[in-house]
């Protein structure tokens, strides 16, 4: 009797493991279906013009998400551009210059602390420190100076991306075959030459994947951007203009959305965000997997 129970519990356990694993795997698919079904009224009402429609007027039931699309793309790419030199330098410092030892270990932990600060605290900090600086800059350039806008959001976002991209790029860089580096040194190359002509070119796909994954994170970053971007559903004139991103329009308007079409239109924005980040993450992960074996 006891034996039979043990066989049974074992069977249940093995079955449970597979069920848990497969459920986690199809979770993404379930997400997609959920979002698609609940955004269907919006998709039907808005049609394809939704993507490049320039006016967002919930009162008139007129929805075009082009301003958010532009706001999201500019903010993400700008923040990636600002953080790139810092991430590459810190990744080289920790992965190539000083891969081991106490001091680099401390440095690594300190940079990882950036990931410990919640998004909303970044936004609050940016509102108090970065926004006034940007406002001063705008005043010098004789522009309207609200302080909040694409540029402010991008600066804070770029700081948030650093720990993430540093750890990805450092991993890639430290996997460079030693023989390759030593061959270059034996030919008389300086360290700068080894890095720019051997390490970076031979890891270029891994490094790009690291930036791609950081881009995915920037696209979906919500709270800090919502606080700092100025929340204006107009097309931005320049990089200082207040704007809106896809994530922040959802964050701001979702609970206040009245009517089925409005709500499902916001879910449609979420669906788009989901599809784009899924594709970006899938490609990035596959590249990283390919280079690490």
């Amino acid at each position, binding site marked *: 009797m006891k034996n039979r129970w*043990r066989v049974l519990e*074992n069977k249940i*356990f093995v079955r*449970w*493991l*597979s069920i*848990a*694993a497969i459920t*986690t*795997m199809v*979770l993404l698919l379930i*997400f997609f279906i*959920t*979002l698609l079904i609940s955004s269907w009224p919006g998709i039907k009402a808005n049609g394809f013009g939704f993507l490049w429609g320039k006016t967002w007027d919930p009162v008139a039931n007129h929805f075009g998400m082009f301003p958010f699309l532009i706001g999201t793309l500019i903010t993400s790419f700008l923040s990636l551009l600002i953080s790139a030199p*810092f991430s590459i*330098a*810190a990744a*080289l*410092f*920790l992965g190539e*210059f000083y891969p081991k030892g106490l001091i680099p270990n401390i*440095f690594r*932990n*300190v*940079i*990882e*602390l950036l990931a*410990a*600060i*919640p*998004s*909303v*605290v*970044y*936004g*609050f*900090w940016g509102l*108090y420190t970065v926004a006034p600086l940007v406002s001063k800059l705008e005043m010098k350039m004789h522009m309207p100076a609200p302080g909040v806008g694409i540029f402010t959001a991008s600066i804070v976002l770029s*700081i948030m991306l650093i720990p993430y991209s*540093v750890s990805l790029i450092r991993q890639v860089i430290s996997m460079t075959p030693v023989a390759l580096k030593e061959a270059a040194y034996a030919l008389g190359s*300086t*360290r700068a030459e080894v890095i720019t002509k051997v390490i970076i070119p031979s890891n270029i796909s891994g490094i790009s994947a690291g930036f791609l994954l950081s881009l*995915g*994170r920037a696209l*979906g970053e*919500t*709270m800090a951007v919502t*606080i700092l971007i100025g929340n204006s559903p107009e097309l931005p004139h320049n990089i200082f203009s207040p704007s809106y991103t896809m*994530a922040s329009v*959802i*964050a701001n308007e*979702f*609970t206040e959305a009245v009517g089925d079409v409005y709500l499902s239109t916001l879910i449609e924005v*979420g669906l788009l*965000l*989901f599809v784009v*980040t*899924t594709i970006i993450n899938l490609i990035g*992960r596959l590249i990283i*997997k390919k280079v690490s074996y």
Partner: protein
Amino acid sequence: MTPYEIRGLQGRRIKDKIFTSVVWGLTFSCLAVVFIILFYIFKMGIPSLNWALFSQGPKPVGESGGGILNAIVGSLIVVVIAAIIAIPVGVSVGIFLAENRGRKLADRVALAIDVLQGIPSIVIGIVIYVWIVKPTGKFSAYSGSIALAIMMLPPIIKNTEETLILIPTTLKEASLALGASYFRTTMKILLPAGIGGIFSGCIIGIARIAGEVAPLLFTAFGNPQLTGSIFKPVDTIPKVIFTYASSPYDDWHRIAWGGSVILVSFIIVLNTIIKIFESRWKVQF
């Protein structure tokens, strides 16, 4: 050697020096940013830490004082429920991945988990809204917990898997050879041997969700009243920071800074625990 070559060599050396100093400079500015941000948060927040912050609920606009007791309790409820949901599932999936390593299915599951980690948290909030909040017709703490539990899964799974594959197969085989079932072997041999790594995965998961607001906006929502019920909407510390930070009142900003210090200190403490665990309790054979 011709002078030309010497100049070339010197030029290359100078370039190398410049390159090295640029790398140093940029790395140090990253470190400086960390200290500037943390210093600012603590400078603004520490003066607003007082007993009222921990023991009182919010006061109406205009009255000074008040605290975030409701949000502290709410955060605890939401995070603890999320951990209770995520840890058993995450550890199970981790065991599955470690046991089926190299098989196609396990590879796909692992890839799906990596992608899941990159899904914006606000999208997870929408999905849970559609699943739970819309059918039940009200915001609730447990719906927020489910959203956070999904975000917690990837680190728990990764850490469990990575810890379990480090445990030598001889240990498992010895247990199986003694007649223990696979279930008993996992429970009594594998999990205890890897408990350090699994535990640190759980802490990483908690650290990841403790500061999240986006998935809670349409699930746990917010509630100025103190409540212990998981079926009611609750406030959480990060949500209060968001609400107060977007308000024009100085008093509310002060409370938001206090909340920021509590939240950041909590997450830094968790990170420190993880580091200690990783260095002391790492599986070693």
